[in-house]
């Protein structure tokens, strides 16, 4: 079996352009969730989201293309032409659909993620093999799992995974209707958490076989060593309360990586800040790792819940934690929930290990777990 390694990656988040800025932002402990300026939030549950400064709605370029264009143009020369592209998104270029409903466009079809995939392949300069993956908020971690699986099984030896989503009226009104948003700012694993904060971001990871990376003299950032995917098959918007679905996904991922839970040094949790998600995650984690309290963190107090991009950004941050052997603080965490006490922290947590775990869950009960190795 071929090893799937990450060779190039980057992101743009509400902290700014580049993984460095996101890392520094998280370590500053200051949230990048801020007032929404691009549409009225008068009737919404919150007026805050982790928006990217300078990103504005305009007819020439959609919000996700404003994120993706500079990000991918910078590295297009490093992307081999035979790369298979996987796009993970929940809404893609949703402005086309919004404009269609306003009567400003003749068709909403350009909002389909397939059209966005075409544009991405054009910027990346690939031959045109690709697919879109949609699995709610676990979309990009599942896309990364699929990429790693393709490499491991030698279907492809180079796969570019791209994740993106923007803060739109479409999505904010929807989450607001479900009463899933924190009126102020998301506080993952906090006793007083009330919901999530939406965020926008784009990111990419180029995944290659170890062999090809070696031949092309690529710098290896880390390995996607194992993965597991499950479904709660329980409720359309809420997770299984006991975390049993995520628990099974973590066990599958450990088995796929061929490592025991004892090897895991830290955990990047989905940690949305909703009452039920955070509780079920801690239950699942405790069930796998028993009472061996590991450093657990969530980035969503800093950069919000970036939906289809979330898992991919968390992989990139996880590789950085493996490199530095320290987790970022969980931003906005003031009063640690009793269940999470001893696991999460508002401060950076050092660890010593070559493996971390990254988890994501989403609507429809989807769960994803990834084992990452330095």
């Amino acid at each position, binding site marked *: 079996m071929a090893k799937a390694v990450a060779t190039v990656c980057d992101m743009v988040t509400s902290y700014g352009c580049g993984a460095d800025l996101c890392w520094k932002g998280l370590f500053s402990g200051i949230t990048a969730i801020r007032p929404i300026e691009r549409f009225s939030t008068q009737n919404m549950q919150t007026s805050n989201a982790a928006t990217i400064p300078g990103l504005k709605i305009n007819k020439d370029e959609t919000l996700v293309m404003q994120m993706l264009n500079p990000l991918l143009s910078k590295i297009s020369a490093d992307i081999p032409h035979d790369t298979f592209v996987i796009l993970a998104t929940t809404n893609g270029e949703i402005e086309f*659909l919004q404009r269609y409903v306003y009567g400003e466009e003749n068709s909403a*079809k350009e909002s389909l993620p397939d059209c966005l995939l075409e544009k991405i392949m054009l910027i990346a300069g690939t031959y045109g093999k690709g697919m879109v993956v949609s699995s709610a908020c676990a979309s990009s971690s599942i896309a990364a799992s699929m990429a790693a699986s393709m490499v491991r099984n030698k279907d492809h030896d180079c796969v570019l995974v791209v994740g993106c989503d923007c803060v739109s009226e479409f999505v904010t009104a929807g989450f607001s209707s479900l009463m899933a948003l924190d009126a102020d700012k998301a506080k993952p694993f906090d006793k007083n958490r009330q919901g999530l904060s939406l965020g926008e971001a784009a990111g990419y990871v180029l995944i290659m076989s170890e062999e090809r990376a070696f031949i092309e003299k690529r710098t290896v950032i880390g390995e996607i060593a194992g993965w597991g995917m499950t*479904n709660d098959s329980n409720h359309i918007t809420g997770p299984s309360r006991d975390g049993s679905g995520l628990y099974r996904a973590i066990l599958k991922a450990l088995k796929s990586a061929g490592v025991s839970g004892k090897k895991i040094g830290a955990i990047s949790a989905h940690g949305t800040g909703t009452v039920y998600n955070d509780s079920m995650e801690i239950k699942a984690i405790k069930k796998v790792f028993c009472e061996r309290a590991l450093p657990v963190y969530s980035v969503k107090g800093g950069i919000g819940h970036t939906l289809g991009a979330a898992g991919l950004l968390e992989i990139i941050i996880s590789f950085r934690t493996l490199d530095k052997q320290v987790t970022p603080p969980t931003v906005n965490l003031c009063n640690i929930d009793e269940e999470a006490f001893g696991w999460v922290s508002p401060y950076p947590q050092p660890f010593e290990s070559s493996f971390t775990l990254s988890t994501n869950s989403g609507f*429809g009960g989807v769960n994803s777990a990834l084992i990452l190795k330095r």
Partner: protein
Amino acid sequence: MIAVTGIGWVNLKEYGCIIGKYKKSHNGFDSLHSCFMDESIFLYPVKSIKRFDIISRTTCYSVALALKDAGISYSHDHKKNIGILGANEEGCLESNINYYKDYIDCGRIKARGNLFIYTLPSTPLAEAAIHFGLSGPLLHMSFKEKRISFLLNFAGKSIIEEEVSATVAVKAEKSNAVSFVLEKKEDLLNTRDLALENVIAAAEKTSFDEMIEALEEFCEDKADLS
């Protein structure tokens, strides 16, 4: 090896099971729930089916038929490690429009959560997973080339990689849907089971009706040979 053990389909006029050679007419999708209850194709009522968008309905109908064709019983309370993968032409475009148009028409006061939940292409698969108790991997895929072979090949690989006992591959549109049950088998000695590569070859047709016809013919030919 990967075998196809059940194929269920539904269109605006008929529904059926390919391997079991079963076909019936119906009076429209609205009548199908009670019809499926009467025939024990649904073993218990689908909760909140009236709330479902149209693709969630066609997904549930075709998955029920495919599981029946495969002889797999199901229960929401006893979940099975079966995955569900889906693909279709336009994802959830129509549901996206319905949700956002409703929000705008209502003066942007409050969006409807019951419409918003269908603005993910994976939601119809999730509705089916909840009803049938399928707890394996769930995802919606969209390939550049809209060929069913990509979906079926991918579903086959997911069984080997994920070590799920079976995967249901669904191609659901608003006017028709087809679902395939894929299982790992030691051999194809059971004459009912079909080799995945043969099903892919038969299913690779441009129209839905042609595909169903080709699958039916393939099953007839296989029966004659055995």
